[in-house]
């Protein structure tokens, strides 16, 4: 039957792309969230210069397209002796860019949550690091969950840009299949649908996580 033979011929390519996209997005998302937490720490711990440094960082990445850091790392690192695989270069660029947005989200949540709690923790004798780790961060993260979910979806869509540096993911596979078969439209449509499915899945996952965590509070 047409459908099963289609799956047999093209299935593996799409699957490759799907896995590549999903794993890259997952890695870059986790990295971006960690990096964003790190930036929040710098902002809180850096006294007078912390906020300034992080603000400057955020402004740079807010006002430049993400393709530039991708090219910078991919073309530039080999020139300074770091020959990393394309997916790592691309992933790092995504982390640096999206980490800026994550830090802004966390900053907003931090301002919204009652400072009293944090001060109370400090007066109980918790060290600043422990206060950050056990009191500030968990609350800020849970409060930010919906916005972080949005950001993860943006990361997911940004992974398509890694096709410009030949990373195996959905858009790359679509381009390859187009060149191989000449049936341009079909490949891009399938890939578009797959992205929509991934986005839908991610949204569902975050909504469920938010509901689950909210009950336990």
């Amino acid at each position, binding site marked *: 039957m047409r459908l099963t033979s289609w799956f047999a011929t093209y299935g593996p390519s799409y699957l490759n792309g799907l896995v590549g996209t999903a794993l890259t997005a997952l890695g870059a998302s986790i990295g971006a969230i960690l990096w964003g937490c790190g930036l929040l720490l710098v902002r809180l711990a850096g006294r007078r210069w912390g906020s300034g440094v992080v603000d400057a960082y955020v402004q740079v990445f807010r006002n430049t397209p993400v393709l530039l850091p991708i090219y910078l790392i991919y073309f530039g690192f080999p020139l300074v002796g770091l020959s990393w695989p394309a997916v790592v270069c691309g992933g790092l660029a995504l982390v640096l860019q999206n980490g800026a947005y994550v830090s802004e989200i966390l900053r907003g949540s931090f301002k919204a949550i009652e400072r009293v709690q944090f001060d109370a923790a400090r007066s109980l004798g918790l060290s600043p690091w422990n206060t950050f780790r056990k009191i500030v961060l968990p609350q800020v993260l849970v409060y930010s969950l919906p916005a972080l979910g949005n950001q993860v979806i943006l990361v997911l869509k940004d992974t398509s840009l890694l096709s410009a540096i030949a990373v195996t993911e959905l858009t790359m596979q679509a381009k390859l299949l*187009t060149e191989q078969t000449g049936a341009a439209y079909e490949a891009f449509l399938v890939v578009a649908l797959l992205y929509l499915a991934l986005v839908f899945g991610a949204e569902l996952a975050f909504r469920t996580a938010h509901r689950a965590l909210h009950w336990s509070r």
Partner: protein
Amino acid sequence: MDGGSLLLLVRAAGVSLLLAVAAVVSGTGLGIALAGLAFSGLAIVRAIYRAWVYVVRGMPVLVLALLVFYALPAMDLQTGPYVAGVLVLAIYVGALFAEVFRGGVLAIPRAQWESAKSLGLPPWAMLSKVVIPLVARYTLAPYVNVCVMTVKASSVLSIIGVWELTFAAREIIERTLAVFTVLGAAGALYFVLCFGIDRTGRWLERRLMARGFVGEPA
């Protein structure tokens, strides 16, 4: 990096800006039309709106661009890369603007709708004297945001062969290998464009604040 390359980058930045401006203008028109659909009396029209926005925002801009670039020749339309590029951006940005405008309309307090109705204002007066001025003021900040996003999205068109700032930068790098300086310069140029748009937006906000108000109701 030599002066010639720098000049080339500045020219390319101008192209990126023009692409963005064209996309914002057409995208705003499209966004207004779409937002009209969002408030249609027919449930099916509203559903079409939601589906369209979901699809356009759910896929990466690059995939949308590839779809449009390959669809045009398939429909026997030979447009240049720039027209196709503006079309892609307009479709993408149009959906974003539609959501912004829709949010603006929803932000109007009920009492203002009802006051306008109670004054017996005819529909055209209600629209031009009340709804549009209010929505324009509520949506100024997110509108400017989308404009900045348009400039950044224009860099994606480089992957499809549209000559603009990112494309020019990559061209120069492949020729000269001056990766850091060229990309640094390109980044600075994008920064100037985006930051400039953002600051203009804030200046406009301040001007409107003095003349009445801007932003969502308290």
